C-alpha cells in the first residue's frame, strides 16, 4: 500500500504532497525534509530504492524535481517505479511538456489527476486517455 506521494524540488520545497495514511501536520514537513535529504545524498549510479524507518522509499528524478513514493513492505518496488513514470507521462500529455512551473500553478489539476490514478494507496487507473477524460470535460465546462 502506498503511504504517501511527494514531489519535492532540489531546494527542499514541496510541490505536491498527498498522504494516504494519517501523519500529523507538523510532522509532515519534518518527514519531507528527511526524505529529500536521503534522496539528495544518493548519486546517480545508486539504486532508486531506499529503506527509510519502517517503510521503503522509491524515488525518481526528473530535472530538478524528485518524485518520491513511500510504500510498505508488500509492494513491488519496480511496479511503483514504473508507475511514477506513468504519472509523469500523463502530466506530460495534459500540460504538453510539463515543467515544474506548470505543476506549481495548476496544483489543483495535478491533484485531480493523481486522484484518478491512485485511490486510497492503490493504483486504480493507468490508461492515459481514461485518466484525462474527466479533466478535459471539466475544462470544457469551465470555459463555456
Amino acid at each position, binding site marked *: 500500500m502506498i503511504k504517501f506521494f511527494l514531489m519535492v524540488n532540489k531546494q527542499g520545497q514541496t510541490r505536491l504532497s498527498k498522504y494516504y495514511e494519517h501523519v500529523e501536520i507538523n510532522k509532515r514537513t519534518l518527514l519531507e525534509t528527511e526524505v529529500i535529504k536521503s534522496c539528495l545524498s544518493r548519486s546517480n549510479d545508486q539504486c532508486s530504492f531506499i529503506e527509510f524507518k519502517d517503510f521503503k522509499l522509491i524515488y525518481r528524478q526528473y530535472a530538478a524535481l524528485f518524485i518520491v513514493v513511500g510504500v510498505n513492505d508488500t509492494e513491488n518496488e519496480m511496479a511503483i517505479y514504473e508507475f511514477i513514470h506513468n504519472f509523469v507521462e500523463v502530466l506530460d500529455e495534459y500540460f504538453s511538456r510539463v515543467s515544474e512551473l506548470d505543476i506549481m500553478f495548476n*496544483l489543483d489539476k495535478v491533484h485531480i489527476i493523481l486522484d484518478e490514478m491512485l485511490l486510497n494507496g492503490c493504483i486504480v487507473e493507468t490508461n492515459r486517455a481514461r485518466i484525462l477524460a474527466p479533466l478535459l470535460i471539466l475544462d470544457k465546462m469551465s470555459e463555456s
Partner: protein
Amino acid sequence: MVVPSLKLQDLIEEIRGAKTQAQEREVIQKECAHIRASFRDGDPLHRHRQLAKLLYVHMLGYPAHFGQMECLKLIASPRFTDKRVGYLGAMLLLDERQDAHLLITNSIKNDLSQGIQAVQGLALCTLSTVGSAEMCRDLATEVEKLLLQPGPYVRKKAVLTAVHIIRKVPELSNIFLPPCAQLLHERHHGVLLGTITLITELCERSPAALKHFRKVVPQLVQILWTLVTTGYSTEHSISGVSDPFLQVQILRLLRILGRNHEESSETMNDLLAQVATNTDTSRNAGNAVLFETVLTIMDIRSVAGLRVLAVNILGRFLLNSDKNIRYVALTSLLRVVQSDHSAVQRHRPTVVECLREPDASLSRRALELSLALVNSSNVRAMTQELQSFLESCPPDLRADCASGILLAAERFAPTKRWHIDTILRVLTMAGTHVRDDAVANLTQLIGGAQELHAYSVRRLYSALAEDISQQPLVQVAAWCIGEYGDLLLEGSCEETEPLQVEEEEVLALLEKVLQSHMSLPATRGYALTALMKLSTRLRGDNNRIRQVVSVYGSCLDVELQQRAVEYNALFQKYDHMRAAILEKMPLVERGGTQDEEAKESKEAQHSEAALVPTEPQASKLLDLLDLLDGTSGAAQPPPLLGPSSEGTSVHLLDLPCASSAPASIPNLKVFEREGLQLNLSFVRPPGTPALLLIMVTAINTSEADVTHFVCQAAVPKSFQLQLQAPSGDTVPAQGGLPMTQLLRILNPKKAPLRLKLRLTYNHFGQSVQEIFEVNNLPVETWQ
C-alpha cells in the same frame, strides 16, 4: 474588504517573489488575514478561490485549520467547481481526529445517491481517504449499490472505496463478498484492477474468504493468459508489456491463493512458466512483472523445475547493470536462501562482488546474503572476502559484519587455530564494534585449545604491543598474558616467528595498559589481575609487581582499589597461598551453573567407578572404607569455577582480607617417599567457624620429576569435603615449583576430624599408589 482577492496564480507569484523566509511568511500571513476576513463575510462567489489559496499555503506547512468549516460549506454547494475544491480541502485538512469530519457524512451521502458520475467519483474519493469507522458503517450500503452500476468510472472508484471500508470495519466484508465474482467478468481494466485489490484484501483478512476465492483461480489464470498472449494493445501497454500493473496485481493474488495449496498451485504452473519465459526483459516494466512472477513461484507449491528457473532468473538479474534490478534480486534471494540453499549457492561469486558496491542499500543486502551463504566448504574464502569488506565498509554496517563473521567462524571453523586467527583479525580491525560476549567466547576458546596456548599468547602479545586502543583485544590479550606468561617467555614456538620477550617488557606493557586513558575500567581490572598472576609465573622477583599493586591500593576507582587491596594482602599475609590461588584456570564452561551441576554429577559417577576397585585393596582401613561408597562423603570432583576471570579472583578470595589473621595452626608433614614430600597447612577462617581449609603442598627434592600426580581425599560422613583443582599434575624435580591443592572441609557438628588421603603418581618410571590416614591432626582443626 474592498481589496479584490488575489487569484491563486497571483498568490503563487508573490510567494515565489519573496526572497527570504521572513518575507514569505509576511506575504502568507497577510493573505491568510484576507482569507479569514473573507470567510467571516461569507462571500459565496469567491469562497472556492480562497480555499484553493489556503490549501496551497497549507501545503507549504502553515496552519490552515480555520478553513475546515469552509470546506463543509463548499461541499454542500451545488456548483461542481465548489464541490471539487471543497472535497479536496476535506481530504487535505480533515482527518479522523477532527470532530468536523462527521459533518460531511450527510453531504457525501447525498452526493453518492445523485446520478452525476463526476460528483459521485469525488465523494467516493474523499470517503476512501478520510472515512472513519462510523462514516464507513453509514455509507457502506450506498457504496455497495454503486458497485453494481453500469458505469465503469464510478465502479472502479467504488471498488477501492470498498477496500478502505473493509480496512476500517472488517465486519462489513461480508457485504462485499458476493459482488466480487461478478466483477471479475469485467473487461474494463480499471475495474479489474480494483476488484483484484479488493479480493486480495479480503483474502488477507479472513481465511474463510481465502477458501471461497480459491474457486476463481482458473478465472484469474485465464485473464492473465489473455493479457500475456494477446499481442500489442495500445490501450494499456507500457513499453511493450500489456498492462503490467494488472499483471502484477493478479500475480500477487495468485501468490496468496496458491500458498500451501497444492491444487491451485498446479493450475498456475504452466501460466507462470509462460510468463517467466516470454516477458520482455529489456525494459523496466517487463522486469517488474518478472520479479513478481519469481516471488510467486517461490511462495506457492511449485514444481522443482520451476523453482530452479526462478532462481536462475534472479541470478540473471544480479548480473544486470541496473542497480534497481540488482537490489530487488538480492532482496528476493535473501528470502529464498533458506529453502533453496543449493540453488542460491551457485550465484555466490556474483553476490560477493556486490559487496564491493559503493551503494549502501546494495552492500547491506549483499552482506546479509553472504552471511547466509557461508557453509563449511566455503568458509575460508568467504571469511577472507568478508574481512576485506570489513576494512572498507561504512560504520553502520561494521557491527553487523563483525558479529556475522564471528558467528560464521564459530559454526564452521575448520581448525581451532584458524578460528583464533579469525577472531584476532576481527578484533584488531573492528574491535569496538563487536558484541560484548566476544571476549568471553575468545577466552574460552583459547583456554580449550591447549596446544595453541603458546601460539595465541605470542600473537596476542604482538598485537597488544602495536595498539592498545581496541578494548576487547586488550582484555583478551591481558588475560592470556596473565595465564600463559611463562609460555610467552620461554623458548620459541614453531608456528610463529621467534620472538624474544623479556620479563621487563611484559610488565612494562601491562603497566602501560593500566595507565592509559583509553582503557576502560574493566580492561584495567584485567590488566591488574594479569600482573598478579605473572607474579607466580615469572622467575624474577616481584618487586615491580608489588609496587604497582600497592600504588593502586589508593586508586579512585572502587573496583580497582578493592582488587589492589586484596592482592596486597595476598602478597603480605597469605603469601603461602599465593601460588595456589593464582594457578592456571581450568577450562570454563559456557552456560554457567547448569553445566557445572551436570558436569559434577557426571564426574561423580566417574570417580565412583574409579574408587570402587580400590575397595578390595584397602583391607586394613575398614573402618573408613564405608566412606568410599557414598557420593556425598566421597572425594568430590573439583567443581568448575565461575566463567570470568574476575569472578574467579573473587571466588578464590573469599577469605576475609581485612580482618585479623586467623588462629595459626602448625603445618603438618604427612607423607614422604623417595624425595616426594606432602605437607598440609591449615586455615580456620574466623568468619565461618565450621570451615577448615587445608592446603596440600607436594615438593619433590629427588632427581626425577613426579608425573600424573593425583591426590584424593575422604572424610567421615558428617563432613562435607570439596577438592579444588590442583595447580598441576607434575611436581618438578630438584625442589622446583611445588604442586598445591586446596581442600575445603565443612564440619558443622564439630566432630573429630579424620582424613584419609590416596596418592597416585609416576616416579622413577614406576607408578606408585599410596593410601594412608592422616594422624596427629591438631585439635584446633576441628574444635
